[in-house]
């Protein structure tokens, strides 16, 4: 069984993520320090709220360097909402410097008819993406955010959504993945996406193992 570490740093709904992982046949492990990351096959960094306080809490748990090292080693990572945004250089929301793994900033969603952007919005993957395997283009996922990633390299965007303007709904660079929406709150399609992530992780670390959808 795939062991998926879920960063527990006081920013997000861990009950749902942990249970959703169980439902798709993975074993969630809540990690509060670097030591707990050992033995994990994949890492999920969830999170809602502002970037500054989230970075502070990651630092207090001494998780910043282990997360960087994890990603640098090409290991499977899924950032959810803030966990995607933190991958970039900095956030316009509070000016906080973030992980700086991908070039670009987190900016306010411009031209939005309502903010925060709350609710189910349709997501259009760019071509065939393993993370969206078995998920039809135009499937709705649950979003709740006001800021979006503005990557320097457009090539990392693997799916888009639109609320006033188009914005990245999902990004990828190798095993580094991120979704702006909340798969753990997006019903059966969200579970499917988590199963796909689990399968990607399985293919990376344990090629022989199958993961039920």
């Amino acid at each position, binding site marked *: 069984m795939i062991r998926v570490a879920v960063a527990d740093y006081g920013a997000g709904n861990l009950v749902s993520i942990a249970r959703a992982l169980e439902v798709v046949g993975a074993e969630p492990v809540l990690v509060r320090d670097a030591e707990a990351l050992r033995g994990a096959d994949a890492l999920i960094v969830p999170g809602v*709220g502002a970037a500054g306080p989230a970075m502070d809490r990651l630092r207090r748990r001494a998780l910043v360097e282990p997360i960087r090292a994890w990603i640098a080693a090409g290991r499977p990572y899924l950032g959810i909402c803030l966990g995607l945004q933190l991958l970039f250089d900095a956030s316009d929301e509070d000016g906080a410097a973030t992980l700086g793994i991908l070039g670009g900033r987190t900016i306010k969603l411009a031209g939005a008819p309502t903010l*925060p952007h709350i609710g*189910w919005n349709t997501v259009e993957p760019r071509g065939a993406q393993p993370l969206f395997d078995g998920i039809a283009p135009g499937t709705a996922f649950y979003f709740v*955010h006001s800021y979006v990633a503005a990557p320097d390299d457009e090539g990392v965007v693997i799916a888009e959504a639109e*609320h006033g303007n188009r914005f990245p709904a999902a990004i990828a660079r190798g095993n580094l993945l991120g979704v702006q929406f909340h798969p753990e709150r997006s019903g059966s399609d969200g579970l499917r996406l988590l199963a796909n992530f689990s399968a990607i992780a399985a293919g990376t670390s344990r090629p022989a193992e199958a993961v039920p959808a």
Partner: protein
Amino acid sequence: MLSRRVIPCLDVAAGRVVKGTRFVDLTDEGDPVELASRYAAEGADEIVYLDITAAPEGRGTLLELVQRTARTVFIPLTVGGGVRSVREMRDVLRAGADKVSLNSAALGDPTLINRCAARFGRQAVVVAIDAAREDVPGDPGAAGRWIAYARGGRDRTGLDAVAWAQRAVELGAGELLVTSIDRDGTGSGYDTELLRAISQGVPVPVIASGGAAGPDDFVRAIRDGGADAVLAASIFHRRIYSIGAIKAAMAEAGLPVRMMAERAA
């Protein structure tokens, strides 16, 4: 495209679903998790629990219910009723809720809104406003206004509901849940004038509540009231309409809704 949400509201007391008319005459309507699961399968976009007892000794029961729900139902869960502090909000979020709605406590101390928003982000803070229309004395032809009520509709605050809505958003509310006390439980339709007065003055999503009887009411709350989401209780609990039937009617009226895909077993 962003869907307009249909949200069943479960008034809960001591771990059970209850429903009353105009906040009184409560009747037992079932197990919350069972109902929430059914609604999620029917296409509910979100679930709202309002703990209408909100007694301190009942918090454990509520948190246990939230946890059981978050582990069973994979759609967003908002919990309201009796949350008075950042700490209580933290407990509810930790139990697995995505959002917390504040009402009486925020009226009593509006700084609760910005303290909660600063800690958890404004997207987690819903401010619920219970409003009743008042005519201008001696002038039945005047437009009238709406007054915000606290404590489940029992206490008249004297605050203008539209002004309170704007203040709540300035303080950090990420969403407003607007209930017409006049319409709640009456089946006479949402108060679209109240909804419009509030929604046109704020950037955040507005959830309409109170008075839904049929599909047309949902459509009007969005089209005429400017609501982003529509909430109802008894018409779903009593199976007068399914969530799917309401959404089909909304789609028919040209509103974007998330329909449940036909799925192979």
